């Protein structure tokens, strides 16, 4: 039940509605406080949390189609990579303004989502997973073969994008809060989509496609639009990531990265949107901490994920909610 909870129908009055507002508010307030608390030796934390928020944007995009549409995309890192490469390639051509770079990142990611979605969405289940993986790998190898742009070694970006001429992103704190604003906007966008007429049809397509067709909906069109929105959020994430790291490489779109995104969503709790943020936070912080102890940190993450999936179908958020309601009797 926990796995299906919430993702299908509209939120029941009471706990869920408030959780949809309160949990993200707490999360965003926490992110907002990080630069204020992290001074001196802790300053590197700002970049750690910025990276978390950047991946959280892509994870929210993935949760939109995974948690509400049961579309298991195993190629989602491609969108991040495409967004990042748009920034890198434009920078190499001497174009350094976000007005163009961001538009290009979104356009490329959305176009890729549209074209691959036309094919992917003809398939279901395991075939959908395999074909999204295949398209992801195509993007990966294509990026690796771009000899003028660094090939397998990637491409260093010598100057961050300006925002309408102002070097806003050179200011670490301004950049951080810009990422936070993007994250909050992404969350708000997806939350609105889910509750809208469009979202209702999209969720219905997952519940019972036969019934949806019988009442007059061509559900594939709705899934395609959601897939494109999801891809756009990946592109946004990639745009921010390229600027944050001053670097792009094919590794951004490796299938392991796609797996990481899936893990974030499932680990945090899918079909909630904020679960994806919690998942990105938990997964990347664990990676950060565990990598201090051992190179083989995935050996620890792996079993942990198994435990979460087996014993807590709602992910970390699900566990927290269960504890909360149990404590209140």
């Amino acid at each position, binding site marked *: 039940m926990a796995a*299906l909870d919430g*993702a*299908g*129908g*509209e939120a029941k009055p009471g706990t869920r509605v408030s959780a949809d507002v309160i949990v993200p508010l707490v999360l965003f307030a926490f992110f907002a406080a990080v630069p204020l608390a992290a001074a001196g030796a802790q300053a590197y934390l700002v970049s750690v949390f910025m990276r978390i928020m950047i991946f959280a944007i892509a994870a929210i995009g993935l949760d939109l189609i995974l948690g509400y549409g049961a579309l298991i995309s195993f190629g989602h890192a491609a969108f991040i990579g495409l967004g990042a490469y748009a920034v890198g390639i434009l920078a190499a051509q001497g174009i350094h303004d976000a007005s163009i770079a961001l538009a290009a990142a979104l356009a490329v990611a959305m176009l890729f989502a549209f074209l691959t979605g036309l094919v992917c969405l003809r398939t279901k289940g395991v075939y959908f997973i395999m074909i999204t993986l295949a398209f992801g790998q195509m993007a990966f190898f294509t990026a690796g073969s771009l000899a003028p742009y660094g090939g397998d070694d990637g491409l260093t970006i010598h100057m961050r994008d300006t925002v309408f001429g102002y070097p806003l992103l050179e200011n670490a704190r301004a950049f951080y809060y810009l990422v936070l604003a993007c994250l909050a906007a992404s969350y708000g966008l997806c939350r*609105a*989509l889910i*509750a*809208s*007429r*469009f*979202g*209702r*049809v999209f*969720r*219905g397509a997952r*519940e*019972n496609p*036969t*019934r*949806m*067709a*019988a*009442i*007059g*909906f*061509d*559900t594939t069109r*709705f899934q395609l*639009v959601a897939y494109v929105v999801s891809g756009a959020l990946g592109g946004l994430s990639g745009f921010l990531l390229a600027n944050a790291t001053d670097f792009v490489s094919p590794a951004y779109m490796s299938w392991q990265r796609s797996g990481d995104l899936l893990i974030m969503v499932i680990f945090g709790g899918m079909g909630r949107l904020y679960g994806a943020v919690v998942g990105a936070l938990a997964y990347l912080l664990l990676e950060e901490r565990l990598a201090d102890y051992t190179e083989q940190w995935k050996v620890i993450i792996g079993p942990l994920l198994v435990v979460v999936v087996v014993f807590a179908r709602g992910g970390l958020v699900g566990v927290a909610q269960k504890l909360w309601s149990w404590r209140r009797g």
Partner: protein
Amino acid sequence: MADPVLQIEDLRKQFGALAVTDGVSLDVAPGELHAVIGPNGAGKTTLINQISGFLKPQSGRIRFDGRDITALPVHARARLGLARSFQITSILPGFSALENVALAVQARCGSSFRFFGRAAAEPVLNEPARAALEEVGLGARIHVPAGALSHGEKRALELAIALAMAPKLILLDEPMAGTGREESDRLVALLARLKGRFAMILVEHDMTAVFALADRISVMIYGRILASGPPAAVRSDPSVIAAYLGDDME
């Protein structure tokens, strides 16, 4: 007589060597309740699936409301006003009863490519949905998740979904199947109330219900229409008695 809502001409469908629909012609007049009866495996559900578009016939033509719909996909036929219930109940289990029906209203009421504004708060969708649920006797159950309704209630919900589509024709594939005596009595009374307002094709094994409701009955056996006519004529047709009804109907 007014032009028929539905007109099927010489429909043929084969699964391998088996002709499941073997030259079926049939029509439904506006407001008419046309029952299709016959033994299991006669091809009744296959016929319904071809009318609604889930299966493509090998040959023949289906005209609906003056249009040839033989090549149209399911959703396009639904948009023209063709509603159906399923032999095995097909609803959105995770959605509330109200949402199930509101989606059907949404399908015919404005664009669904609206990305903002809470659909659940739209009176344009909820009011007609509520009315349809009242009509089928689910007025007190609108916020219950559809998956938690009883079997009979789910059947009624399917009818409410069909009504909310404001259809020109409703295809009912064994709406009474699996319901208890009391529930099926309630469904028969409901169908009797709806009769005349919508054209309907009723596939049903409950002969008491069929003879009480139908304006016309077609008997199907081995993919063919054996006889077709008013209930009294069909009941006394010797070939029908021999092949399907038996003597006990007398």
